[in-house]
């Protein structure tokens, strides 16, 4: 390639060369696959809404849809309740200490979901750490079922989601002007009052963003319900897998994917509205 043909830096002649590879990759391996999903959801020897109509009448699908929302909402609530204290704690630390403690949040973020699932299998199982401890303290009858049911799914998902809550909540907390808290303190407000009237309300954009992100992630979750949940904890992604591989009903699988895509789209639109002041979502 002749150097001169590429032009000077900043000249627009380079743009096609710079942007062609990423465009090709996105179109061929992202947008075309997405359009295949859309296509299969409405095409079966001619255009048809058959797949959607039968889904609307399918008790299996409606149950799975309900389960998905149920699990997503519970896991999001638990993640917010556990993630917010972490964000608050991190926000109070001096920068160096915060960077160190941040590693404790980043490590689970970068840990394979399969490693975590295996670990929870050991922690929550019938012969797991918690049940061993319960038996040791309270006797043989004290064991509780924590795995292959809703509890297992919520624990596993909350663990996965907490970092996604901590990052935006921490950003919101760090962006607050500390003088506001100081002013309230000078005027005689106690710590709980300062928290409820200043810190918490001002951090709401971050909390809402974290909550919406958790909803998007948990509605589409695939691994955790299969490995830590029971039969009643099947979620939309598992149903898509079921129709794709077990019954080879690609139209129904694609229709469920389109519904999931629409739900995620609504949540992401809300997310970018909440974060409209930060520039990019």
């Amino acid at each position: 390639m002749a150097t001169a043909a590429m032009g000077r830096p900043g000249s627009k002649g380079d743009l096609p060369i710079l942007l062609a590879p990423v465009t090709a990759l996105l179109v061929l391996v992202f947008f075309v696959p997405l359009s295949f999903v859309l296509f299969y959801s409405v095409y079966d020897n001619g255009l048809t809404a058959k797949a959607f109509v039968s889904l609307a009448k399918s008790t299996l699908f409606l149950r799975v849809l309900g389960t998905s929302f149920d699990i997503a909402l519970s896991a999001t609530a638990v993640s917010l309740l556990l993630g917010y204290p972490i964000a608050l704690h991190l926000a109070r630390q001096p920068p160096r200490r915060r960077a160190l403690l941040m590693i404790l949040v980043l490590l689970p973020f970068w840990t394979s979901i399969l490693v975590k699932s295996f670990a929870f299998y050991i922690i929550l199982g019938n012969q797991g750490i918690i049940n061993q401890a319960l038996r040791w303290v309270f006797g043989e009858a004290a064991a509780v079922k924590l795995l292959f049911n809703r509890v297992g799914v919520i624990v596993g998902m909350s663990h996965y989601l907490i970092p996604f809550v901590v990052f935006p909540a921490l950003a919101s907390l760090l962006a607050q002007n500390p003088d506001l808290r100081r002013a309230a303190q000078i005027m005689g407000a106690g710590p709980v009052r300062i928290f409820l009237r200043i810190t918490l309300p001002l951090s709401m954009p971050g909390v809402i963003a974290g909550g919406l992100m958790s909803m998007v992630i948990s509605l589409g979750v695939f691994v955790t319900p299969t490995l830590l949940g029971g039969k009643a904890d099947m979620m939309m992604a598992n149903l898509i897998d079921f129709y794709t591989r077990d019954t080879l009903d690609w139209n129904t699988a694609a229709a469920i994917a389109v519904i999931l895509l629409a739900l995620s789209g609504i949540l992401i639109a809300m997310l970018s509205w909440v974060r409209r002041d930060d520039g990019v979502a």
Partner: protein
Amino acid sequence: MTNVDERLSLTTAARAWRRTGSTIAAFVYFFLLMPSLIVVPMSFGDKREIMFPPGTFSLTLFREYFFASTWMATTLQSLEVAGASAILSLVVGFLAAYALVRYDFPGKRLLNLVLLSPVLVPVIIVALGTYLYFSSIGITGTTPALIVAHSVHTTPFVVVTLMAGLRHVDPNLEKAAEIMGAGRIMVLRRVTLPLLMPAIFAGAMFAFLISFDEVVIAWFISNTSTQTLPVKMYSSIQWEVSPVIAAVSTLLTLLSLVVCLVSAAMQKPA
């Protein structure tokens, strides 16, 4: 320092409030760390039981993983897919990041958003679409199919990392080299890329680990001969729970720790 006089002015109530907060936080930190702490001792147990704490200390599981099983084959497959995805997404991602940081053009904001969309769309939908599309052109189950499918997923992370890196590389250095007569390729090789090395390294690590741990797309488009490590782990945990997974998990945790330290180091300059 604000910190000092803030501490001096703390009332008893404020101190109690803080202590409560710190206690809750300590509990959650422990919860976050627990899985990583559990798998390491587990991996030194033996083959017969999956119990914590393991009754014995042995390297049986590691030996099994490295020498006596199909685990190594799937690991090599994952290494190949993750390595190739990292390289592909670095090349594609660098060019895109360079355009987005150094140039102004119509549709830049839109492109920024579109570039991130593979991360925002639930991965199950991408996995299904890729499966349907690749089946129709007859390439499901091939290694190149896995590589490109993973690259779409890793490229956004590379682009974001490299864009942050490029903003710290002064464009005047590139201009100066140019004025002194260096060609575009020369400027890239001798100025831009060396200065960008930390971000390139971090981006490569992120892309590698994301692909190495990715399970949903691989579950849909790999077959028995191109099975990756996470897919094997997924089926194993689902059906028999081989204790070897403890050894695999310890090694994966080490890899995560390295990448985690890299990403923690990346956050500081910002």
